[in-house]
């Protein structure tokens, strides 16, 4: 809900005595005052910071906010009342917190975009790092590796996740298995990604001996991270399907499995697709589990069952952690990889939004 200052204060516009309990302050600050105070505070804060040190946006916001809070408190206290003054201070603090939190976000986006743009070229998307030292090279192998591993992860996770959610909603009836499943899916949501990686390594050590690195091992690790997200979102969507629709279908003499597959799932499909897309977005940026399961390589390998593969996040990490000499081309490729990764994640988020917006069941005339 939103209550504007205006709504609350109109009652005080007349000259009649205020009915408020605190009673001391009679007037009301016009709307423009706080904007004026805010602008003045920021200006003074900015000058102060620049004069004492250097031009710095985060400090300007912090110092400006401090000045604003003190100023608006004093003004409001003389014109309005102690209670309104406190209210205005809190409004200032809350708004400052919000603005402050925008700074890292903006800084992050600006950094990644400006530094990533340098090598965001055709060569980056068409060349691998095979035989490349220093300048040149690209992340073709890493991009393809990420797509392959994420694809395999999705192929494993989505059927298991959706069927498990169907079990919870349609068959479980709160029996022991479904209660255990709900609990352990919650537990799985909290598994640190590195631990999922260790699990996959341990599992494949049993079959293939220690030290094996393979795309499929990474996919299994990511599956452990992706399944709970798919189960949770699908379960939520299935529970939103009204029971009346299931009953209507049963009453037409439709068996349960056809009711689920032809009535319940189509009704919930937009929500499920949104959830799956967001789950993909979550695992596609995972680095740590791939570091310990898939390893790294300079050449293109698209076979998840045959040795090391390169992935975008790992590519970015190793470009930073073990650059060659000179370092600059490695760092440039690292930022380009980070930019690519961020664009993929953002695109997936936007797609998820669009799916839920345009493919939801139509109810209009």
């Amino acid at each position, binding site marked *: *809900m*939103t*209550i504007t200052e205006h709504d*609350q204060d109109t009652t005080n516009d007349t000259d009649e005595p205020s009915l408020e309990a605190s009673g001391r302050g009679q007037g009301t600050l016009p709307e423009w005052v706080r904007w004026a105070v805010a602008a003045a505070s920021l200006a003074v804060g900015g000058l102060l910071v620049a004069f004492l040190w250097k031009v710095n946006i*985060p400090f300007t916001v912090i110092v400006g906010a401090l000045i604003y809070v003190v100023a608006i408190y004093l003004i409001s206290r003389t014109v309005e009342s102690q209670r309104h003054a*406190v*209210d205005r201070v*809190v*409004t200032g*603090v*809350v708004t400052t*917190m*919000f603005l402050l*939190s925008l700074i*890292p*976000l903006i800084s992050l986006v600006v*950094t990644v975009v400006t530094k990533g743009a340098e090598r965001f070229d055709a060569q980056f998307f068409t060349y691998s790092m095979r035989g490349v030292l220093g300048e040149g090279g690209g992340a073709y192998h890493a991009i393809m590796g990420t797509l392959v591993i994420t694809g395999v992860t999705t192929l494993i996770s989505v059927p*298991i996740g959706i*069927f*498990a959610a*169907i*079990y*919870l909603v349609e*068959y*479980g009836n709160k029996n022991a298995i479904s209660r255990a*499943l709900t609990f*352990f*899916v*919650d*537990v*799985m949501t*909290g*598994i*640190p990604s*590195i*631990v999922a990686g*260790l699990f996959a*390594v*341990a599992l494949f*050590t*049993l079959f293939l001996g220690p030290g094996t690195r393979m795309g499929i091992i990474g996919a299994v690790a990511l599956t452990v991270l992706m399944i709970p997200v798919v189960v949770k979102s699908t379960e939520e969507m299935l529970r939103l399907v009204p029971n009346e629709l299931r009953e209507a279908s049963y009453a037409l003499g439709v*068996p*349960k*499995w*056809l009711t689920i*597959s032809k009535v319940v799932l189509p009704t919930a499909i937009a929500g499920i697709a949104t959830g799956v897309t967001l789950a993909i977005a979550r695992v596609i940026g995972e*680095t*740590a589990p791939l570091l*310990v399961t898939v390893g*790294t390589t300079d050449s293109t390998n698209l076979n998840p069952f045959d040795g090391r593969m390169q992935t975008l*996040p790992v590519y*970015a*990490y190793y470009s*930073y952690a073990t650059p060659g000499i000179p370092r600059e081309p490695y760092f440039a490729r*690292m*930022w380009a990889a*980070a930019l690519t*990764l961020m664009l993929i*994640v*953002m695109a997936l988020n936007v797609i998820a939004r669009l799916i839920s917006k345009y493919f939801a069941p139509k109810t209009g005339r």
Partner: protein
Amino acid sequence: MSTSTQTREPAAAELTTGGRRFGDQIFRGLSTSAGLVILTALFLVAAFLLWQAWPALVADPADVRGGKGLVHYIAPLLVGTVMAALIALLTALPLSIGIALFISHYAPRRLASALGYLVDLLAAVPSVIFGLWGITVLGPGMIPVQGGLVDYLGWLPFFGGTSSPRSMLVTGLVLGIMILPIMTAVNREVFLQTPRLHEEASLALGATRWEMIKQAVFPFGKSGIISGAMLGLGRALGETMAVAIILSPSVRYTSVLNTSGNPGTIAADIALNFPESSGIDVNTLVASGLVLFFLTLVVNMFARWIVSRRSEFSGAN
């Protein structure tokens, strides 16, 4: 279904299928086995980690990395993990409450949903990118701030010595920024669920907006804030890449946060050392992973417990 004792004629063929309907059986079987696969997988996670960690648990202390035994290897890492996560929590908790309040109760409605979306987007940024940003932008940017902390707050046990851009403080701040979106999302949901009647009752009594928030929104949202904080803490404890990239670890215990003298975290230690490890070192790292697993498990279960207690109390959910 029906257990009738009377004798009855065999049911007419029109209504019987002779017990077939494969579709139903297959579908039920698929769903049930999907559930069982997940339960088995989680059991296997625990079992395999124990199996791989076991050699390190029984090994001669001299063989374990560092040469002083498993406990001496994991203990500083555990301290580092908790330290970084606590700094993150202390940073993110007040900010997430403020941002959530801004979105739920202060921003104009149309702006609010866009802002909510922005926060969700922030949650999707891969951790490796946060790490790279932290080491490139925030770390250097924090040097004068850390210097100022040493100059003016040096009497506190947390600040002193030579500041490093790869300090525990910078790491914790980046982790705080990383868990901010999830905590904000939880708080925002809880604040938006505050019963309108409570809010209106408070406003009708002449409360200012802040008084209304104190009287109606915070009491209602308290357990939600706590469980959101626990979820954020769980994330921060398990976060790997950002720490691996930013923190410059050492194996000392110190309360000073602005130097490069703090121990690393379990997750980052695994990521940094696992690719080059073999033999007993792998087992040692898996053992430390197991410790991390149980730590996050406890924190997450505590969060769930608070949530479930809340839903029992409020009839709304």
